[in-house]
């Protein structure tokens, strides 16, 4: 009796979850760096609040 399908299924689950375990922090890292760059870009051309009369 062969249980090859079960073995394949188990190893597939293992591989899939390990792949997630590899990709998830990588994506987090990218998101963090992206947020930092965005923040830098925003602070570079920020308009400073002024005390002058408001206009609209």
């Amino acid at each position, binding site marked *: 009796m062969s249980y090859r399908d079960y073995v394949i299924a*188990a*190893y597939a689950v*293992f591989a899939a979850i390990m792949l997630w375990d590899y990709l998830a922090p990588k994506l987090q890292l990218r998101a963090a760096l992206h947020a930092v760059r965005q923040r830098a870009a925003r602070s570079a051309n920020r308009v400073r609040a002024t005390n002058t009369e408001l206009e609209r």
Partner: protein
Amino acid sequence: MNSSAKNRLVRWFHQLGSPPTFDRFAARWTPWAYLLGLLTMGIGLYGALFQVPADYQQGDSFRILYIHVPSAWMSMAVFALMAFYAAIALIWRIKLCEILAMACAPSGAAFTLITLATGSIWGKPMWGTWWDWDPRLTTELILLFLYLGVMGLYAAIDDRRNAARAAGLLAIVGVALLPVIRWSVVWWNSLHQGQTIRLLGESSMDASMIAPLWWMVVGTHLWFVGSLLARARADNLRREAGKDWVGKLAGHESLEQAR
């Protein structure tokens, strides 16, 4: 722990604990840990799938145990490590340990999930059912809830440091209660079902069958180190997002990516 060893441990965490230092450390060693882990697991898997002969009782299905057992060990070991980091973080207020403790949780949950899934797949041909309220699987399921609780708590509190400290406290409570939970489940099982099924026969594996298991155990540990460092690095960067060194790093990395 005597005081000099304690001091050395604390000093080591403090030195490594400066966020830019840790970032460099993690960036340097993460790929190596992943690579070595992958290599070692590759050796183990080759042995498990192609070298080891089929078991006379279980047929090929016992090959599942080569991923099931290391994952089960990891799921427990990672929880203990998480509680260890959390305890250091709570007692000496070391930020790096908060980050490391919280980086443990998703990996540990992943290993727990693997254990549950492979255990259930193994159980189908062996027990004739996908799920059995076997004490091991039941404990593993509760462990998964504990992991999810730690992750959920960490995500739900706004202040990152308070979130890590609260979730760390839960991890410590969980570690203290895990033996009680496990013991209660065994007691419950004996009350309701009588005999339990042993997952690994006492000595049914001979040495040639054991070797790939050890490769897998070492491999999963190395892999875990890689994913722990990667997660901790991401969390570290997210927390320090406003600092100058992160800005420089982000600029540097974007240049590298553009190249």
